[in-house]
């Protein structure tokens, strides 16, 4: 027999009540685990997505910069446009290594499936240093560079002449296929800028300009110049590093609020555990008295009851972590539907340290919650064993 085994036996006495108590801890731990995993996944996801964009600055039409950034990253139709002539002013700014004009449009076929067409020039390659292309980059009208997922979904191969999805009667030739980037680019269909503008009837208009600096330190100066140029009043200059910080700040504020809620849930669960164990101690007073009579010390009884409490909390925590892990896709889907700027990467990313932190919290919670019942149990006098109550073996 071991102390752990002896304390585990208590589960058998009232399995339903103990399980319900552990479930309270499980819910609180699941919330904490999801919160920590989400915070980690979201931060990394946003950072990777902005890195994949390859730009330091995003120049977009006037409007909400977050909406514009989200559209540029994930692909959608733009509500308004930039004049192509702004590009010259952007390129004239000191410290800019490359300014890539982009025209993006999203269209839907009869089944509701979305296709995103992106018109670009060859200088986009100066920003997309991680791109690996099988075949060639499209340089002439009618040529297409297709993202890995889009090529797979449509069953396209290099050299194939294809009908463009959701663009009735229009065709193109696949000259290149992007190797998977793990980002939204995998779903896009790229074509020369002029071709995209013509197909969507927006000649001399752009949806956004991706700007890469010669050095990231020149960000503030470049942003000031862009905002101060003649076209500055007609466009929104979005420094992506600032946007990352703003998004993180927003998420951190939300995390603080959710963290407080998770903490309150944990404290409530701890109070529930403490109350349940106190009741159990009260019900088992004579039994604990018998243990004292036959040789258990006060410390032995304290250890036994404390272990029972810690065990309930740790079991609940393991259950909560398991449930949170299994439900992470569901949580991710829900969170994604609520966030204005959700990266395509996994939002909920768990790591071992997060599980360890949750178990640590449960251990601390169990230790604190078990203290009062354990003290109370340890104070039970051996003569309690002589009580003549009914209904006990």
């Amino acid at each position, binding site marked *: *027999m071991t102390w752990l085994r002896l304390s585990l036996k208590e589960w058998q006495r009232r399995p339903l009540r103990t399980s319900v108590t552990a479930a309270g801890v499980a819910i609180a731990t699941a919330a904490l685990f999801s919160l920590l995993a989400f915070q980690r996944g979201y931060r990394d996801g946003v950072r990777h997505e902005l890195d994949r964009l390859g730009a330091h600055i995003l120049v977009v039409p006037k409007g909400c910069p977050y909406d514009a950034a989200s559209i540029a990253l994930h692909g959608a139709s733009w509500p308004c446009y930039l004049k192509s002539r702004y590009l010259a002013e952007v390129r004239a700014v000191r410290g800019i290594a490359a300014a890539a004009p982009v025209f993006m449009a999203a269209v839907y076929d009869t089944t509701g499936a979305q296709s995103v067409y992106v018109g670009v020039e060859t200088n986009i390659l100066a920003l997309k240093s991680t791109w690996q292309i099988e075949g060639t980059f499209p340089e002439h009208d009618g040529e297409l560079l297709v993202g890995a997922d889009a090529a797979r979904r449509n069953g396209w191969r290099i050299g194939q002449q294809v009908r463009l999805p959701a663009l009735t009667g229009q065709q193109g030739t696949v000259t290149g296929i992007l190797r998977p980037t793990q980002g939204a680019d995998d779903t896009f269909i790229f074509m020369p800028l002029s071709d995209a503008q013509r197909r969507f009837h927006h000649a001399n208009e752009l949806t956004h300009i991706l700007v890469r600096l010669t050095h990231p330190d020149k960000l503030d100066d470049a942003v000031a110049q862009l905002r101060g140029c003649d076209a500055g009043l007609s466009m929104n200059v979005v420094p992506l590093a600032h946007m990352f910080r703003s998004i993180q700040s927003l998420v951190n504020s939300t995390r603080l609020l959710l963290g407080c809620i998770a903490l309150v849930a944990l404290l409530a669960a701890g109070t529930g555990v403490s109350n349940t164990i106190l009741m159990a101690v009260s019900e088992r007073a004579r039994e604990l008295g018998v243990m004292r009579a036959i*040789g*258990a010390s006060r410390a032995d009884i304290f250890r036994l009851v404390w272990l029972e409490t810690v065990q309930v909390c740790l079991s609940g925590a393991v259950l909560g972590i398991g449930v949170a892990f299994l439900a992470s896709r569901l949580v991710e889907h829900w969170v994604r539907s609520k966030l204005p700027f959700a990266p395509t990467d996994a939002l909920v990313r768990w790591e071992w340290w997060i599980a360890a932190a949750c178990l640590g919290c449960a251990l601390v919670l169990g230790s604190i919650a078990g203290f009062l019942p354990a003290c109370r149990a340890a104070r039970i006098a051996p003569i309690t064993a002589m009580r003549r109550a009914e209904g006990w073996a």
Partner: protein
Amino acid sequence: MSGSTGQNGLIVSAAGLTKVYQRGREEVRALHDVSFEIKRGEFVAVVGPSGAGKTTLLNLVGCMDAPTSGTLALFGKPVQNLKEQERTRLRREQIGFVFQHFGLLPTLTVAENIALPAFFAGRDAASRVDELVFKIGLKHRRDHRPSELSGGEMQRAAIARALINQPGLLLADEPTGNLDSATGESILDLFEQLNREGLTIIVVTHNRSLASAAHRQITLGDGALRLQP
């Protein structure tokens, strides 16, 4: 059986034992000036009407409670002023308890219940448990839970538990109180067998045959000693 004895082979030596409980503002004198001695190997029955102080006396002799005044020596050593830890150690090492309500833990098997005092003493008692279940005739019930046992079997298991640490003194509080007369007789036989093997036994009982089987009786009435042959 373990446990040394005092002068003249005394296991228990009580002089002027008094126990007063406070019940609200009222003082309840449960025991008053009780003196007696019990020698090694004796089988003593404590008898008397309900409320006479029998269980209080057993609590004091079992080091579960401290006397208000008087002296009490167990195995030749005064125990009335022992600290809690020392009393716990004495209970664990030298005294075996048998309760009217058996006091078996419902979640443990017979073997685990029997091993419990040894576990608290930090000893591995597997072979001793095997020896005891065989001795009390519960080998076939070794891995059963108390709820699967009859009253007599439960009390046998409780007696085995009391013997696991090889105590020098066995205290029993109404050990046949919850048993039918036939089962009570078998428990009496077991006590007599243990006493013949040298174990000192003190039994609080209302059971006449159990009391008459003892070497002598200590009779209490209103917390005082009435007769000590």
